[in-house]
């Protein structure tokens, strides 16, 4: 094995171990009852609106990003016609404070995001974050 192969393996195995399980799967590769979602490892979800502070109302088709601190990964979605978005949830191992939501839209700039304190406090299962946008 070459040095580069060993280095790749070390990197890989460090990541493999946490995921080295095979969920119950069918011959085709999926579970018997795929639509019955197992929430046992589901953490907090994020939802909110992109709002146009100049014109009022929601911003449709805005790009919404959820960056996860120290994870080299992000989730991206777009707002619907009312400016609403939702990320369906992260695993429990993710601290909600490490998730940063931002929005972008051509012709507008993000002034700030507002994270609303969920009623459940630390036990909350969803957190609302609104993107407040203005003309540049």
């Amino acid at each position, binding site marked *: *094995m*070459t040095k*580069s*192969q060993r280095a*790749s*393996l070390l*990197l*890989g*195995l460090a*990541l*493999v171990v946490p*995921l*080295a399980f*095979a*969920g*119950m*799967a*069918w*011959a*085709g*590769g*999926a*579970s*018997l*009852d*795929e*639509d*019955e*979602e*197992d*929430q*046992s*490892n*589901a*953490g907090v979800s994020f939802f909110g609106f992109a709002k146009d502070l100049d014109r009022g109302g929601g911003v449709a*088709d805005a*790009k919404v990003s959820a960056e*996860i601190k120290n*994870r*080299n*990964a*992000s*989730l*991206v*979605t*777009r707002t619907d016609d009312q400016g609403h978005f939702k*990320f*369906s*949830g*992260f*695993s429990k*191992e*993710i601290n909600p404070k490490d998730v940063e939501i931002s929005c972008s839209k051509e012709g507008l700039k993000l002034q700030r995001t507002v994270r609303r304190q969920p009623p459940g406090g630390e036990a909350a299962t969803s957190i609302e974050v609104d993107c407040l946008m203005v003309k540049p």
Partner: protein
Amino acid sequence: MGIRGAARSALAGIIFGTLLPANLAFAELLFDTPDLALTGRVTSSKEGAMEGVLVSAQRTGSPISVTVVTNQAGRYSFPVDRLTPGHYALRIRAIGYELDGPTTVDVAAKGTVTADLALRNVDDISSQLTSTEWLISMPGAEQKRPLIECMSCHTLERVVRSRFTADEFVGVLKRMANYANNSTMQKVQARVAERDVPEDRARRVAEYLATVNLSKRDRWDYELKTLPRPTGAATRVIITEYDMPRSTIAPHDVRTDADGFIWYSNFVEPYLGRLDPRTGVHTEFAYHLPKPSFPAGALALEPDHDGNWWLAMMFQGGLMKFDTRTKTFHHYPLPTQLDSDTAQQSMVMPRQSQVDGKVWTNDVNTHSILRLDVKTGAYERVDPFQGMPIGANRQHSPYGMAADKNNDLYFMDFGDESVGRVDAKTFRATIYPTPTSHSRPRRTMLDDKGRLWFAEFAANKIGMFDLDRESIKEWDVPTPHTYPYDVYLDRNGQLWVGSMSDDRVLRFDPQTGKSVEYLLPRQTNIRRIFIDNTTTPVTFWAGNNHHAAILKIEPLD
């Protein structure tokens, strides 16, 4: 047909009636249609002239069968360049009908042969239903969902015709869960690593299945619903099937090359296959099994920049490259530490490997992505789902792949609901959930406008991801329970869609929403599809994974 033609037909019928099989309603030679080798009308006592009946002709001893479809007047027509002179067997497909026994016809070197065909109603249509029609017919909603996995190996007719009780089904389900993905009815392959199915889940499915099969009754107590026969544009098509020399051959991914050959991956055997559609000559290139005690066969087949073929080796582990110049294979095995009894590479993406010498693949077992350095043979692993929701029933699974000009990877999360991107330089992953939840996007293709087209298997939709806008648009496919496997955009901006379940190929215009569904001549389990844009009109290619055939569809408009 005019009076003169009718009179000539009657005369010819008298002359040739005794020479041709009695079950041909009528036969004649026509001399005024030099462009046709064989034509005729299809009728039934119930409907009269029948539109949308598939008529297939296969010359004795030939592996090639050609199919045309009757028009509104019930007429079918085989052009002269599609049938060489010889003795042909004819068969039809029209739900609810059958020919009265086998039918043959002799096609002459000159002139047009006419063979009118009479159909009769079948007493029992159950053997003619597609899996899609069974799913439409069965009662229930969400209880049916697990059945979409069964179609990887067999049709749903096998399920509903069974007589297993719920208790017996539990054992059947547990047994089948230990079959490899790359199994067919002709070649069942067991996994090396055993999988356990939780009793409660197996029982839940088993109890439903026992309500829709024949365990408690001699006939199904629900109405058997059927899809309509083709009409209009769906009848203007020529379909050619090339039978493989062994029934065990399972063509999975099909691709054409610059020389006009058709290449395919064999899902259950250690061969790369090649077909010359001009001659029907079939060639196999054998490779050694790296892990002889593991299930054989490869899934994805993709070319690199130099036209060499790459195979994803499934349970054999790693990737295989076929050098088209030297006709030799080179295996890139997984390193020992990544290899295991459950290691499985189903996808490969070498199309932009000339950029950086890297080829993408996946590891189904660890829900992750691997990247091969072609020069060193080393694999790097990327987990694009760090921190994303994951649970026993929400497991991510990178599947269909495409690469952009920088060899950045775009992949489908077949286990869940997202399109993913991995930056080739930084391994940074970006996940884009589809608007429809649990859509299970499957195979994909990247067009030259930077749009990723993909099949949303579980959502019954087609998706498009715009790389620049980072946005996803979706379209419903017109027939419920189609479960599209793959999609391909042709040069006219029309989408072609294939599936494992409905024996139809969808041609869909995303601009207008108009669609045409071409019914196929027989049960056809389609996986990867390919459009040859060099022909006019374009030509559709796919494999019939369960019935050892390559399928060509040529629309006539």
